[in-house]
């Protein structure tokens, strides 16, 4: 490790870093703008100047930009040198000649990097008396607000949006001191990662438009570490509340998972928590006065629980605790997964393979660091957006690493590396059914039918390991397989990505076999945030529950946990299911079709109002914490309700409260596959120096006034017995352990850039290790997972189409679809066919067609999907109003002329 001297004191630093990174790692406060750990250095803003000396005798030194200077052993530099300080102050003064007098009305204020840096350099008075430059703003869609006057020309936005996220509709225009960052004309930003601009921008040019509707400063938010519940990636987020409303979602850095960024579904999909559609009161139907109090509810549940047989329907979007509590209540044999047979079967398979330890799942970081990525069948851009962003980084970073090796350039030297790399890319083979935006950066992309994707997977595996069965008699397939196999042969860290949205088991077995053949890690994108946790419980599917109901007659009371069954299986089946059950008890947070069927409806907490644990696609158990106590005190976590009901049923209640840790300990003993899950966060009694961790920053305001309109005497602060957090601003003020970081703040660092102080090094892991516990065993060499059944090639059937779901990154989330901003960007339900099929049907694009499957039919507008193979129909899935059907089956499509029957 090289030693450098900063202001004449020796420090050991890591090799291959630049001076800025080294100084920040050591804890020095050095201002910067254009440098970002995920975007590296370009040396554009001139803010991070330090003085570097030739040797010990050199007293004069020279000013250098610390982000553009590599660390060398024995290097001497000064941060506190007068010239360097004056230079940095001067830079801010220049930036401030045009920066508007906006801070009071700017949403960035209080978490603004420019404010922090201005204070840090000491600039305080504008000497420049001439006029300020102004710009016209643009409309950028419902997610981001644009205020171009505030720009300091650091270029972070375009570097993030274009280079990092791969968008092409944001750019820099005009010249000299008139440069303009925006779109060529007003319009919605197309990238589903655009929301990160609000965090990337060091000033208030791009700010969160949904936060603007109920604006709150960072210091006024009650925050808690949370986990995104809109897809299976499990990005870490910070959720902030004020006045009993969830106000915003911010990224919570986790080096292994989401790093510095989250997708727009995660950032903007929070408003369902404040929705009008919330269930706020227990409801007992078919009586006068349906709203019930807790006592009434418990009384009526008491009679149901003691006299009737129970059947439980779990949910992939409910926490592990809630699903387990339901399993305890209804008994192991009466617990069902609450997803369709196809989905349950495939997710159980994946969970089973992962549990053997023969293959290892890749975290997002490992995907970013891989050198060859093969995507088999899954449209990860729409089903696991952050995984797609990680794949993009793998492609970019591999090319950069190769360039760095050839030219001896350091990796952080972004501009030079980009100049050298030009259009070169790492290897990505993106094999999907209908193409994806990732195709742009793919070395090899193709649209195939599911069975053909599996066959290609097998063919690649055969090229790598001749002992595996091959796919003969298909020249073009073999040629492609060879090209991909050649890349995999030279790869050091290959990753195979797949998922279940093709509803095709062969693709999964092909992916696993391929991963075994090239010792690759795998990433299987799953449908929901806790699909893996639910699959690990190894329960049968919803269809099995319907069967049982039909078989055993009208004797069961059904308990449905946070699950809209109408989104999982066809409506006729669900109707049939409810018609057979004696009583239906539904626990959920939002009214939906299923809650309409409930005789007893119990209000459950959303992710922001309760604690729980989610298991993401890679088997990482992550804890999310309650952010605030809802005004309606009767809203509780599902597991709390269910555990209460369980004790009521067993008549074992002793009046004590129940805590998530106790439940998880019980889970570990009952289901050993969850071993280790209690370690995902410190226990509820955890304190530091006897102090809890405050959810509120120390500048939290309005404590003695916010509730004064109701009663001038302040109420006692709410106690939290479930977690190591307090609901106040009192408590431990230092760095909390990584799973318990409620917000990023450090003295002098009010913006999100304070994250550097919580990391081992910029862009590295959080101090004490990144949060989350893997539930899967370390890989063993025992029995390699190899399969041998290769499917037949896909054959088009006459007048029939293979029905597959087409998800949309912003529209398809169940809970996020209740968000106004995302609803605006969500497409309308439709059916997509290949141009040839459309011609065959004799219908025009945009007209309605009738889709018939298993005796049900629905009308949908039809569109052409470029690249889609013949004989496949993609139906927009997961959107509000889109039909639910058994995917992977064959349906009939009738062309209607002018939509008339």
């Amino acid at each position: 490790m090289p030693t450098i001297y900063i202001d004449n004191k020796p420090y050991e630093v890591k090799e291959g870093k630049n001076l800025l990174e080294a100084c920040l790692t050591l804890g020095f406060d050095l201002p910067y703008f254009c440098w970002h750990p995920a975007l590296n250095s370009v040396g554009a803003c001139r803010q991070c100047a330090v003085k570097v000396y030739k040797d010990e005798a050199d007293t004069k030194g020279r000013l250098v930009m610390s982000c553009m200077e590599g660390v060398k052993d024995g290097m001497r530099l000064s941060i506190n040198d007068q010239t360097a300080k004056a230079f940095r102050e001067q830079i801010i003064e220049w930036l401030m000649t045009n920066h508007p007098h906006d801070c009071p009305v700017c949403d960035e204020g209080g978490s603004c990097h420019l404010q922090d840096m201005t204070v840090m350099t000491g600039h305080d008075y504008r000497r420049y008396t001439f006029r300020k430059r102004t710009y016209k703003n643009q409309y950028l869609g419902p997610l981001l607000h644009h205020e171009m006057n505030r720009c300091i020309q650091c270029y972070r936005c375009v570097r993030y949006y274009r280079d990092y996220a791969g968008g092409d509709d944001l750019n820099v225009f005009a010249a000299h001191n008139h440069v303009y960052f925006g779109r060529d004309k007003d319009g919605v930003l197309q990238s589903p990662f655009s929301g990160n601009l609000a965090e990337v921008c060091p000033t208030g040019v791009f700010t969160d438009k949904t936060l603007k509707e109920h604006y709150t400063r960072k210091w006024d938010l009650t925050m808690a570490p949370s986990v995104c519940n809109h897809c299976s990636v499990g990005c870490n987020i910070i959720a902030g509340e004020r006045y009993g409303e969830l106000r915003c979602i911010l990224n919570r850095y986790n080096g292994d998972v989401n790093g510095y960024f989250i997708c727009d579904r995660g950032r903007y999909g929070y408003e369902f928590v404040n929705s009008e559609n919330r269930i706020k009161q227990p409801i007992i139907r078919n009586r006068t006065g349906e709203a019930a109090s807790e006592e009434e509810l418990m009384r009526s549940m008491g009679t149901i629980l003691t006299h009737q047989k129970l059947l439980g329907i779990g949910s992939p979007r409910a926490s592990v605790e809630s699903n387990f509590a339901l399993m305890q209540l209804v008994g192991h044999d009466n617990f069902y997964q609450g997803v369709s047979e196809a989905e349950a079967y495939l997710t159980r398979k994946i969970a089973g393979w992962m549990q053997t330890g023969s293959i290892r799942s890749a975290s997002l970081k490992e995907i970013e660091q891989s050198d060859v990525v093969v995507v088999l069948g899954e449209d990860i851009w729409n089903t696991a957006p952050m995984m797609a962003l990680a794949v993009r980084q793998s492609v970019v970073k591999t090319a950069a690493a190769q360039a760095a090796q050839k030219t001896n350039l350091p990796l952080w030297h972004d501009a030079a590396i980009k100049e050298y790399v030009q259009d070169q890319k790492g290897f990505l083979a993106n094999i999907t059914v209908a193409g994806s935006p990732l195709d742009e950066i793919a070395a090899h992309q193709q649209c195939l039918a599911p069975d053909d994707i599996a066959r290609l997977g097998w063919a690649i595996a055969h090229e790598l390991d001749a002992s595996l069965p091959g796919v003969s008699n298909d020249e073009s397939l073999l040629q492609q397989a060879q090209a991909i196999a050649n890349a995999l042969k030279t790869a050091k860290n290959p990753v195979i990505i797949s998922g279940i949205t093709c509803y095709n088991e062969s693709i999964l077995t092909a992916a696993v076999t391929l991963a075994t053949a090239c010792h690759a890690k795998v990433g299987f994108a799953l449908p929901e945030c806790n699909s893996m946790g639910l699959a690990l419980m190894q329960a049968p599917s919803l269809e099995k529950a319907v069967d049982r109901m039909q078989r055993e007659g009208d004797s069961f009371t059904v308990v449905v946990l946070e699950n809209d069954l109408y989104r999982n299986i066809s409506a006729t089946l669900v109707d049939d299911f409810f018609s057979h059950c004696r009583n239906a008890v539904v626990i959920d947070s939002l009214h939906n079709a299923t809650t309409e069927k409930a005789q007893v409806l119990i209000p459950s907490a959303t992710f922001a109002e309760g604690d729980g644990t989610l298991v993401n696609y890679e088997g990482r158990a992550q804890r999310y914490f309650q952010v605030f106590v809802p005004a309606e005190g009767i809203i509780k976590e599902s597991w709390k309700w269910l555990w209460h009901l369980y004790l009521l049923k067993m008549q074992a209640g002793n009046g004590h409260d129940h805590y998530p840790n106790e439940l998880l300990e019980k889970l570990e003993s009952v289901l050993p596959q969850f071993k280790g899950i209690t370690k995902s966060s410190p226990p509820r009694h955890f304190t530091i120096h006897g102090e809890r961790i405050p959810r509120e920053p120390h500048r939290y305001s309005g404590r003695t006034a916010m509730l004064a309109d109701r009663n001038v005497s302040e109420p006692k602060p709410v106690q939290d017995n479930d977690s190591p957090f307090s609901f106040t601003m009192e408590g431990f003020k230092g760095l909390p352990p990584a799973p318990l970081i409620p917000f990023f703040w450090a003295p002098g660092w009010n913006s999100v850039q304070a994250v550097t102080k919580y990391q081992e090094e910029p862009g590295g892991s959080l101090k004490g290790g990144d949060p989350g516990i893997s539930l899967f065993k370390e890989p063993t060499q025992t029995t390699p997972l190899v399969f041998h059944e290769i499917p037949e090639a896909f054959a088009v059937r006459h007048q029939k189409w293979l029905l597959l779901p087409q998800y949309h990154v912003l529209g398809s989330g169940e809970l996020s679809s209740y968000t106004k901003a995302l609803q605006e960007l969500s497409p309308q339900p439709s059916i997509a066919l290949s141009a040839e099929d459309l011609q065959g049907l004799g219908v025009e694009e945009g007209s309605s067609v009738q889709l018939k499957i298993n005796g049900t039919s629905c009308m949908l507008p039809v569109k052409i999907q470029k690249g889609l193979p013949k004989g496949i129909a993609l139906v927009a899935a997961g959107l509000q109003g889109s039909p639910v059907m058994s995917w992977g089956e064959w349906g009939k499509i009738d062309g209607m002329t002018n939509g008339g029957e």
Partner: protein
Amino acid sequence: MFSHIRTIWLTFLHLFKKKVTIEYPEEKVKLHPRWRGRIVLTKDPDGGERCVGCYLCAAACPVDCIALQATEDENGRRYPEFFRINFSRCIFCGFCEEACPTYAIQLIPDFEMGEYKRQNLVFEKEDLLINSQGKYPGYNFYQVAGIQAGVKGKGEGDNEEPPVDVHSLLP
């Protein structure tokens, strides 16, 4: 003994001096304009609310007795949706006035706020807002801020260039 007599003598002399006490409440106390008393919210020269809901007063308040919620009108002008001061907690330190970047919140020479019920000391925006510019006449924050909020167009404020023409390449 001597000191007692001296004290009585001095007290007697005060009978002939000018009175320092006044007949309050019949006679009002004369207060200086900068006296820190009851808090008010003032208005712009054009009659709009001066408060832009920046939360700085709330953050500066050492007893946390100010709570507000910012919102926006159709022009993008920020104003408080509600603004509440709990005067039963207020210590009249004037930090809120010092923190206020728009001269909206001002402490005025008035201390007559006695109430029999503590609840009546909770003042809402309609109790605080006065139809005056207070101590700082002529100041309009939106005239000097960069944003366009219905007061002036982009580049029409004090000390502002007209908006940049992005298509121009002239130096």
